[in-house]
């Protein structure tokens, strides 16, 4: 069996395992420390049933929430290349191989096409478990290819961001993905095809400073960390404590940088509303 096939089965196995988890599997909330069963958590859109904490989930869960089983993955064969021969405490090549094994993912983003209430949409969703959802060449290229697909098929685009920012091991190549994705998004605007940006916990660095902030609509899940610089870096720079609620979704909404905050349970319905409204768009002519 091919290596890629094994990886793909790895993804499916992980999803299957979650679906068939017995009631006896417990989830302890990161925030309120209350216990819930995995089944309860899943039924509650992967949020804590006690305090509504939005648990960090990956592309498999988001695709499931939006499309159920009924979607097609696009450009699933792209994989990172260690062009710099980068090595810190560990060679990047080794790190990548470990991440492939650990996560069953090929990189930090996956693209899917499906329908929400009869309206087609292309969704790029980042996976934080893969090197902190960092943006390297594969993330940039998959978004670029997704945009090409949207332009060819006149399909709206949603990018779900969840990232610590740039991938240092790809250095300047990673930096240029900011320019690349932003440049490609101008073509969406020109064609009058809507692009929605959903920021989830956490969205920081070069991802925020490029495609995440460039949606025709920018929205976020509640209480997500969203910012340019990380809180630790800011704290070290200004040498004082950060105000409460700093860099949360609510903070960004208050300062005018989000269109709205959407609870995960309402996400699908909200997207359906938007897709219906934008289906009458007359722009781009």
């Amino acid at each position: 069996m091919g290596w890629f096939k094994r990886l793909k089965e790895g993804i499916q196995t992980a999803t299957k395992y979650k679906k068939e988890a017995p009631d006896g599997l417990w989830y302890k909330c990161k925030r309120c420390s209350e216990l819930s069963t995995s089944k309860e958590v899943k039924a509650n859109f992967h949020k804590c049933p006690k305090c509504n904490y939005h648990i960090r989930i990956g592309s498999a869960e988001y695709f499931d929430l939006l499309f159920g089983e009924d979607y097609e993955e696009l450009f699933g064969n792209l994989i990172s290349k260690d062009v710099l021969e980068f090595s810190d405490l560990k060679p990047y090549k080794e790190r990548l191989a470990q991440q492939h094994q650990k996560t069953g993912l090929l990189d930090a983003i996956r693209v899917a096409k499906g329908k929400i209430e009869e309206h087609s949409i292309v969704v790029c969703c980042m996976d934080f478990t893969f090197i902190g959802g960092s943006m390297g060449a594969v993330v940039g290229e998959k978004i670029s290819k997704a945009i090409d697909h949207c332009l060819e098929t006149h399909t709206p685009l949603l990018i779900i961001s969840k990232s610590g920012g740039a991938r240092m091991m790809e250095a300047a190549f990673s930096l240029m993905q900011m320019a690349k994705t932003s440049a490609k998004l101008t073509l969406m605007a020109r064609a009058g095809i809507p692009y929605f940006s959903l920021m989830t916990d956490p969205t920081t660095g070069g991802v925020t400073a490029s495609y995440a902030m460039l949606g025709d609509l920018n929205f976020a899940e509640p209480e997500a960390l969203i910012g340019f610089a990380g809180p630790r870096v800011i704290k070290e720079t200004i040498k004082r404590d950060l105000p409460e609620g700093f860099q949360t979704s609510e903070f960004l909404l208050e300062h005018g940088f989000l269109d709205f905050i959407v609870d995960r349970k309402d996400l699908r319905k909200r997207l359906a509303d938007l897709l219906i409204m934008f289906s009458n768009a007359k722009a781009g002519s």
Partner: protein
Amino acid sequence: MYSPFSILTKRIIKNSEKIFGLAGGGAGECYLCGSTTLNKAVFRNGPINGTMVFLDFEKPLESLYEQLEKIKQVGEEGDLDVTVMVEELEEKIRRKREEIYNNLTAWQRVQLSRHPERPYTLFYIEQMCDRFVELFGDRHYGDDKAIVGGLATFEGQTIVIMGHQKGTNTKTRQYRNFGMANPEGYRKALRLMKLAERFGFPVVTLIDTPGAYPGIEAEERGQAEAIARNLFEMAQLKVPIVCVVIGEGASGGAIGIGLGDKVYMLENTWYSVISPESCSSILWRSWDYKEKAAEALKLTARDMLSFGLIDGIIKEPLGGAHSDPEAMAEILKNHIVKTLGTLTPIPADELVMNRINKYSSMGVYDTVPEDEEVEEESA
């Protein structure tokens, strides 16, 4: 009688005295009329306290210069003819400098890019442009001192030129926030670019920043949004954009004014996604691996050109840009003139599509066979 204007004037004058010290023959910028008096005493980063600044790897040069001074002194004091000795020593210095500068490590280039005597944006503008009117403010919140820009006459044509600006002494370094811009800096830059687009003026940006400022207010005012917006708008700006890294090119703070038709780096500059120090602290979990990080990041002009991420390297005078700032400015000017000459005849739509295509092709990756999808198709 209280006049708000006179209070403002007093405060501004006091402020500029504080900033520029006024002793060196007048301030550089008039805050009331918005014009800039280009003044070498202000913008020229000359030898600090009259002595040369040597970096650690230049130490062999320092002792040679000391010897040279001593010999010259002997020559001035006595009847001894030191001409030959001086010539020999000067030749020795030249050879030593060549030897050092032909074998620079990545970290040494990082050090050079931060050399305290290195010329900054306003110096280059003064040297390269016949006229310059500095324009202030982002029209939303304020004026950022870490990014400067304005209208200029450049080889007979009007351009909009801008760049990061660092200070040249303790006071002005703080005033310029060490070249770390806030959102209003990026928004000012965008405002000037849109102005250029409206009137068909080419845009030149000079990049020299240790990063966009990581502060509370910067986040409140949308640092990420400001940079993202610049990338989006620069990608489709209908006039030529030429960008040159003249010092430090750190991450989003650099690329925030760095997306262009042609991007160049001066020979002793760096450009990457993170500074070697921060990279060391994150990936090596210690500040001590900055040299290693600098090598690993492949952040030199030569590396960047080999990856196809920049369009060319602009050679610096031997000993770095700071060893002969006027010559450096001349080289830079000639390079920009040549580049604008090739870009200005290109129709706007083609220019923009070329620019978007250029960035779309940046990034190297592999593909793995999609055996499953093949199976599905044949089923």
